[in-house]
């Protein structure tokens, strides 16, 4: 039932409130204070940051982060030694550090990251959830899932002769990753100019890369003050956790090392007070009854024993356990990347892309919606009926552009042309998108983090957009919001 749940929940968090407050607004705000206090307490004053590592294939992302983790002491010396031996045997000696994050046999055999590798580490003032994304063009869908959950990013570029150029030109991933990560809401970026030892820490090379990248990143929408450039060498470990002492570098570079820069990132505001939302990025069966789902909590918070609703399947289940970085917890809040053990639902019904939400303020699912999109450098013009791949949070669903509603002016947003014949690169437009199967999504104006999506076609990203309106078939659950508000106003009168 509606009202039965709220009192117990608010009371559980709220032992010192005088009158029973089943009202969502006041009850929640008291909880919000508490939850924030709890969050602070749990992290010992260290806020949580989700970091994604991106960049062109072979820029050295996995090696860079693997070595960083090792230097921080997060990798057992014996394990590291084992990786060194095995990788040498496999003829991939230089990949030893990458093996910390590339764990599947396939990845090690081929020396490529194929799926996002996730782990955690701590800096002086932050707790970082690290996501190592694949750089290869074919694995961009996996990279998008990782980047959608990130707050900040580290872009790795290879400083070696010709390599930076290869990654930065049209076919490389440096640009696409930069654009993607910006379109997904990341505003702070640290650029690791890697393999500097290959160019003898030559300042001119560094400056050249900084100026080319800086120009591009600014166009992509990053503020100059939010982008930082750090020269590094992932393989030798220079300038990762401590400032390098290499004479060639210290002669001209006096800035921070990579770890210091990561520590200096500003943590984003978490919407703990909004209704609970978690995007499922993995489903698997663990020991015991029920099954596990992994994902980032985008809004609100969750406690063991809570009932949650999964959309679009429209099924409820109970949260039996919460795990954050292999630690069992009683509760978790927005920003946490958790594993939930749930019972009361068939595992078949849930797949990657489902969104778990608060049953009382549920997310909508639909097959058709209206959105404002910005087109990237596309080769083919977009016409009505164009087939695309919709990437929304962890979902990737085939869809068609049903209607071309209008073309907008890039800065002012006013309508330039209604019902255009086709759309070309660089345009700002309003379109209607229809998906094959229902997708659960939120409007951009309600949830900034949950209102963005990307459109891809034949292996490249063609547009980024925000959801403006939900149309077509939706099956929202019973509008409990209205009842709760009525309820609360009644109680308000009594209380006052």
């Amino acid at each position, binding site marked *: 039932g509606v009202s039965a749940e709220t009192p117990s929940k608010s009371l559980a968090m709220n032992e010192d409130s005088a009158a029973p407050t089943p009202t969502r607004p006041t009850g929640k705000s008291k909880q919000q204070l508490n939850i924030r206090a709890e969050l602070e307490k749990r992290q010992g004053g260290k806020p949580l940051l989700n970091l994604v590592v991106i960049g062109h294939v072979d820029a050295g992302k996995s090696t860079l982060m693997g070595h960083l983790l090792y230097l921080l002491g997060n990798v057992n010396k014996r394990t590291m030694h084992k990786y060194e031996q095995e990788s040498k045997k496999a003829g991939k000696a230089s990949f030893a550090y990458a093996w910390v994050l590339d*764990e599947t046999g396939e*990845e090690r055999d081929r020396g490529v990251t194929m799926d996002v590798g996730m782990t955690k580490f701590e800096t002086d003032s932050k707790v970082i959830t690290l996501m190592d994304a694949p750089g290869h063009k074919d694995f961009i869908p996996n990279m998008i899932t990782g980047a959608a959950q990130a707050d900040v990013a580290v872009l790795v570029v290879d400083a070696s002769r010709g390599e930076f150029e290869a990654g930065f030109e049209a076919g490389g991933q440096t640009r696409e990753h930069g654009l993607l990560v910006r379109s997904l809401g990341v505003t702070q970026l640290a650029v690791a100019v890697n393999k500097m030892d290959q160019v003898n820490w030559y300042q001119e090379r560094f400056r050249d890369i900084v100026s080319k990248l800086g120009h591009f990143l600014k166009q992509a929408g990053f503020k100059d003050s939010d982008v930082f450039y750090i020269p590094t060498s992932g393989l030798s470990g220079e300038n990762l956790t401590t400032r390098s002492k290499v004479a060639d570098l210290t002669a001209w570079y006096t800035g921070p090392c990579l770890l210091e820069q990561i520590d200096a990132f500003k943590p984003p505001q978490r919407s703990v007070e909004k209704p609970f939302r978690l995007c499922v990025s993995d489903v*698997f069966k663990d020991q015991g009854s029920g099954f596990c789902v992994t994902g980032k909590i985008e809004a609100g918070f969750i406690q063991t024993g809570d009932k949650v609703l999964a959309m679009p399947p429209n099924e409820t289940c109970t949260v039996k356990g919460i795990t954050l970085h292999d630690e069992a917890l009683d509760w978790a809040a927005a920003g946490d990347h958790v594993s939930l053990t749930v019972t009361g639902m068939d595992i078949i019904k849930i797949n990657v892309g489902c969104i778990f939400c608060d049953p009382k303020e549920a997310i909508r699912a639909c097959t058709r919606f209206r959105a404002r999109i910005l087109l990237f450098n596309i080769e*083919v*013009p977009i016409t009505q009926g164009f087939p695309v*791949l919709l990437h929304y949070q962890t979902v990737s669903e085939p869809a068609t552009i049903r209607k071309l509603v209008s073309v907008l002016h890039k800065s002012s947003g006013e309508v330039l042309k209604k019902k255009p014949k*086709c759309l070309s690169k660089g345009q700002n437009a309003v379109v209607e998108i229809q998906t094959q199967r229902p997708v659960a999504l939120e409007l951009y104006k309600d949830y900034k983090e949950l209102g963005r999506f990307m459109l891809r076609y034949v292996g490249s990203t063609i547009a980024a957009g925000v959801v403006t309106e939900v149309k077509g078939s939706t099956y929202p659950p019973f509008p409990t919001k209205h009842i709760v508000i009525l309820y609360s106003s009644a109680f308000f009168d009594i209380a006052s």
Partner: protein
Amino acid sequence: MKLVHKDIEKDNAGQVTLIPEEAEDMWHTYNLLQVGDSLRASTIRKVQTESSTGSVGSSRVRTTLTLCVETIDFDSQACQLRVKGTNIQENQYVKMGAYHTIELELNRKFTLAKKVWDSVVLDRIEQACDPAQKADVAAVVMQEGLANLVLVTPAMTLLRAKVEVTIPRKRKGSCTQHDKALERFYEAVMQGILRHFSFDVVKCILVASPGFVKDQFISYLFKEAVRQDCKILLENRSKFMVVHSSSGHKYSLKEVLCDPAVTARLSDTKAAGEVKAFEDFYKMLQQEPDRAFYGLAHVERASEALAVDILLISDKLFRHQDIATRSRYVRLVDNVKENGGNVRIFSSLHVSGDQLNQLSGVAAILRFPIADVSEAEEDSSSDED
């Protein structure tokens, strides 16, 4: 399809007798039939018999009926055609005007009579009876956790099976669940291949995916084939071909068919030809938008101005049961042909035909640009909401 007898005058009444030989011929027949035509074929009728003692029994009798066509149903999965109509010829088992549904069968002749035989229909008969080599291609378009098994014939793309499995991602310290689920997925795809593709008909089997899934799958497939001693797979090993695609969804088939390695291997795939024509249209739309039109009203105007060089039209429009609309399309096709233009009729069952349908079903590449005086208000495309 075999042509047995033809007695037709263009734009006049006439009849034709055909024998469908394969599944695709059912699709061609579906495109030939119109409401109001008369169809004569052998069929089975359940007949009530009354014996001399008065007891009623029913038996099934094979007889030849001539129907006036009222409804046409095509099941694309089974490639079966069911035609319902009223009896218009004296028959010892069926009364005049009684309803009956004929299910057309392979290798049994039927006779189709029409009041008007237009150019489009005559073309289709030619096409269907063409004894030229027909390439049947099977394709498995896949990505991690999703596979579409598709059969591509000259006129149809049939989705034979879809395998969708949730594969847990790799997690710190534990990859076994991922690997196990992946193996189960490959097993399911392998079963799908064995069950749905008949190796004597299929000339080539494409396996396409982004990343390394296709290579992993092929090595799994043949490892299992050796282990289970599956002769049919081992014998047809040379037919398998590995190609790159950007995703495992059905529309990625377009890219696969455009791949040069594939086109070199397959001599004639009508599907690939259609895809190329469609790509050309898009290129024109991007480079010179005034030379690429779509939508019936626009294309008709272009045709009146004798500007159409290549006309792309979907066969869905010719299955329109409203005679006036249909003849409008036929007139368009005839016009373009008379003025030296090329007409390409796209099959709705192919991926490119499907996309053309979304784009209103008719598009044209012009010889010279025509100023686009299109007003959005009088857009004829449908606006359902």
